[in-house]
């Protein structure tokens, strides 16, 4: 099992635009190689989290070892690394790719090349992968394999003469995929006798096993009871278990060069396992670590506060538990004038933020208020000090600021010609700068530079809606640039609500302020007294709305038999109110915070 010679190992990823069939193909490969019985086979085996299944997206990288008896009569060990599909998790893709020698590029032949196809392909090329184009969904009447073949050649420059035509859904020609893996992907290289070098690909917390580390062995062997050292920190652990995923966890004696598998080593938290780190043997260590990869950095920050102030400790514990499993998100305690004690949390993107928030409420039963998401600004003070600003509430007085820089992204948008106009209007509204516009058949490919600030809230939703779902989008960070930014405060009955303040470009401040006031007017239910909502830059009010008082709210019948019940109801209401966050005597529903900031056209 563990003595597979490297020339009988193939390590590969599947890359695809969302919905092009990556998960379905992975299922078929597992099925075809007998990794699971028919009974164990549930839809989309590798999307294991409830949320992943629901949203149809892969969040965590997953891996599975397939044993394939090839047509040449030899048995091969095929290690599949499933990669997340959403841009927020692009860093996960890059580290999965680093553990493999090749990729299957799945393209839906009814759709063709999309933005994410391109983004992933470029990452695979950068990782020196051999890329096998897979033309999927040929069972569909709308399939246009020849057009898509041409597109792949034109846009990506890949030779498609050996592309594998399949239907992942019906299982058509899955063997063709397996044969291509064996025959076209290079075997991993490595020296079994050299000192151990294993790449730490990922780690997560398992309720029963503690921290599980996913590794790719490059040189040497990784075995049970071995004392291993993390080269970046020098921390030493004793390996307790070594195994592979089939996708069930299967213990093995050791892992040799080229192999992918997991270990456990009594490690307490995921935070102690730096992704990209090199594991080596403590007694005969390697001298040089493997080239690591860039650690993920949170790009979107927001405050998370418990609706019930008493839940602060519970929130701290829950964040801790989530971080056990997801070292890519960060949290630090902070306080807000309006919200009291909470945490400033950093995420890889808005989807990541929403996922964490949803998990906190679902898995930990927490009612939370999320403040306006913010990107990380660089504030250059007049005294020369440069600081990173994660929270609009911390913006220094304008007189102390020399200038501010904001993060930009480079975005690739692919869209059918018909919708190009509306997409360009959208990118212009969002301060986009066009750097390229080319055509791929009747699809336009626009490359834009955009401030990240303009993208985090709802750019993706808007893009989908103006293009009727046809546009695809991918991005990567693209440095910082100076910008004319102002802080907009939201006041409720004259009281500033720090949790709603946000930063915007001066040219858009008024429009944003107005739109938020209008939104809040819809989001805040009528209350006993009328409510004034204002947006202001410094002392200058730029927008205002009034929510009228509720018109009627009184129990019709209240007699002697009702007193106890009515009193208890009142006491419950008071208790609820005490725990409810009030802003200038106004109750703002927790959902209003994030919803108010989503911009409409």
């Amino acid at each position: 099992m563990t003595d597979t010679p490297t020339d009988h190992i193939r390590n590969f990823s599947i890359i695809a635009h969302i919905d092009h069939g990556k998960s379905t193909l992975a299922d078929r490969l597992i099925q075809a190689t007998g990794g699971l019985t028919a009974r164990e086979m549930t839809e989309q085996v590798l999307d294991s989290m409830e949320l992943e299944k629901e949203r149809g997206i892969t969040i965590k990288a997953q891996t599975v070892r397939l044993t394939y008896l090839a047509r040449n009569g030899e048995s091969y060990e095929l290690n599949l690394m499933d990669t997340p599909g959403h841009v927020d998790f692009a860093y996960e893709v890059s580290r999965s790719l680093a553990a493999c020698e090749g990729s299957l590029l799945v393209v839906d032949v009814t759709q063709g090349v999309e933005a994410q196809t391109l983004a992933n392909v470029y990452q695979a090329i950068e990782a020196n992968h051999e890329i096998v184009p897979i033309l999927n969904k040929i069972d569909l009447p709308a399939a246009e394999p020849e057009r898509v073949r041409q597109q792949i050649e034109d846009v990506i420059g890949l030779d498609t003469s050996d592309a594998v035509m399949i239907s992942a859904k019906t299982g058509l020609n899955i063997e063709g995929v397996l044969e291509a893996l064996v025959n076209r992907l290079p075997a991993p290289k490595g020296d079994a006798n050299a000192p151990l070098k294993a790449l730490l690909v990922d780690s997560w917390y398992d309720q029963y096993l503690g921290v599980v580390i996913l590794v790719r062995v490059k040189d040497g062997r990784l075995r049970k009871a071995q004392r291993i050292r993390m080269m970046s920190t020098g921390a030493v652990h004793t390996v307790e278990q070594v195994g592979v995923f089939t996708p069930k966890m299967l213990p093995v004696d050791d892992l040799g060069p080229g192999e992918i598998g997991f270990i456990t080593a009594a490690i307490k938290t995921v935070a102690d396992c730096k992704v990209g780190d090199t594991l080596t043997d403590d007694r005969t260590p390697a001298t040089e670590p493997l080239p690591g990869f860039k650690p993920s950095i949170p790009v979107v920050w927001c405050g998370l506060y418990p609706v019930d102030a008493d839940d602060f400790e519970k929130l701290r514990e829950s964040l801790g538990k989530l971080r056990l499993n997801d070292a890519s998100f960060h949290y630090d305690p902070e306080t807000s004038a309006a919200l009291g004690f909470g945490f400033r949390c950093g995420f890889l993107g808005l989807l990541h933020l929403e996922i964490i928030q949803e998990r906190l409420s679902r898995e930990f039963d927490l009612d939370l208020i999320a403040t306006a998401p913010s990107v990380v600004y660089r504030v250059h003070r007049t005294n020369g000090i440069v600081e990173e600003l994660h929270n609009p509430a911390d913006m220094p007085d304008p007189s102390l600021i020399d200038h501010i820089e904001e993060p930009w992204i480079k975005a690739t948008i692919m869209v059918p010609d018909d919708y190009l106009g509306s997409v360009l209007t959208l990118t212009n509204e969002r301060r986009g700068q066009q750097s390229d516009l080319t055509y791929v058949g009747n699809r336009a490919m626009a490359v834009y530079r955009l401030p990240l600030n303009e993208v985090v809230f709802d750019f993706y939703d808007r893009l989908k809606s103006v293009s009727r779902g046809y546009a695809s989008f991918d991005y990567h960070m693209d440095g910082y640039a100076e910008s004319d930014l102002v802080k907009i405060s939201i006041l409720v009955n004259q009281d500033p609500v720090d949790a709603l303040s946000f930063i915007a470009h001066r040219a858009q401040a008024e429009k944003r302020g107005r739109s938020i006031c209008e939104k809040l007017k819809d989001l805040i239910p009528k209350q006993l007294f009328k409510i004034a909502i204002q947006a202001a830059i410094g002392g200058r009010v730029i927008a205002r709305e009034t929510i009228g008082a509720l018109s009627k709210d009184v129990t019709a019948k209240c007699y002697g038999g009702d007193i106890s019940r009515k009193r208890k109801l009142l006491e419950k209401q008071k208790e609820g109110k005490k725990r409810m966050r009030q802003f200038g005597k106004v109750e703002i529903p927790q959902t209003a915070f994030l919803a108010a900031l989503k911009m409409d056209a």
Partner: protein
Amino acid sequence: MEPLALYIHWPFCLAKCPYCDFNSHVRAPVDQARFAAALRTELAWEAARLGRRRLVSIFFGGGTPGLMEPATVAALIADAIRLFDPVADLEITLEANPTSVEAGRLAGFRAAGVNRLSLGVQALDDAALAALGRRHSAAQAIAALEAARALFPRLSFDLITARPGQTVPDWRAELRRALALAADHLSLYQLTIEPGTGFAALHRKGQLVLPDDDTAAALYDATGEEAARAGLFAYEVSNYARPGAESRHNLQYWRYGDYAGIGPGAHGRLTLGGTLRATCRQRAPEAWAGLVERHGHGSTEETPVTAPERAREALLMGLRLSEGIDAARFASRTGIALDDALDPGTLARAVEEGYLVRDAVRLRATPEGRKRLDALLAALAR
């Protein structure tokens, strides 16, 4: 000693109305003798511990007390008069429905001593009555009203408004007809969806849609206007009377006085040994009767009402009245000064907004304040 009002609960109805969550049950036949005896036993038990307190009112409520044997009503009235110290103009009210069974009993109730009849008319429109699941027609209701007017010195009836689809002009027209028939008192309730009722199920499924808050507010305003034009004033959120014709029994509740509640599920507030106690009885009629037969009473729980609880109760009842709350009475009854029971910020804001008036003697909610009383109380009560 606090004067006393006496509430007697009759838990049976001919049918269960789909909006109603009162402690009412359908039994055919009703064991009249058993329940009559049990009520008399429990009344005697209650009187024994209360002593000969001054009695200001008796109220037969339900359920449908109009379905009681007049002899039972007569016996209970006689017992109460003997056991307590009735005021000269003792108010004795009985609730009845305009059904044929009850029509035949009205004279008997009058002879038993009932001097105020409260009729459950609910609507003057046959379609609306059917929608409310009522078993009588508008014509029957009008006939019952005429008969009652000839018999009883005081007469009130109930209507339910803010019904699904009801418009302000419809309601004004219906209410004007009602006011033409009215004697000196009306209870005009906005339809409430009570949990666990048939209407609640329909409401949840979207098959019953109540008027929105703005319409409900407009209907409420129209109610006050029409009633006032006819000389009936809103002395309480849902109760309208000619000056002097207010229900004294119900005023006792709203002024947070003592009241004894006997019968299944009845609640009371009684000062006993210097402590205000909340009393309540077993709800299920047969179980209650069984308890009475074994122990002389069907009481299941009695708890002292703490000072902050008294303050909240006095507040939530008192602000329903247009006369509001007498600060001195509030302090002596609850042990807490009125202003200490209020959130000062809300008080100031509510006064400024015209929801509340606070003078040296009283605190009262204006009509605008009463219309929003639940929200107001939640912010105002401490």
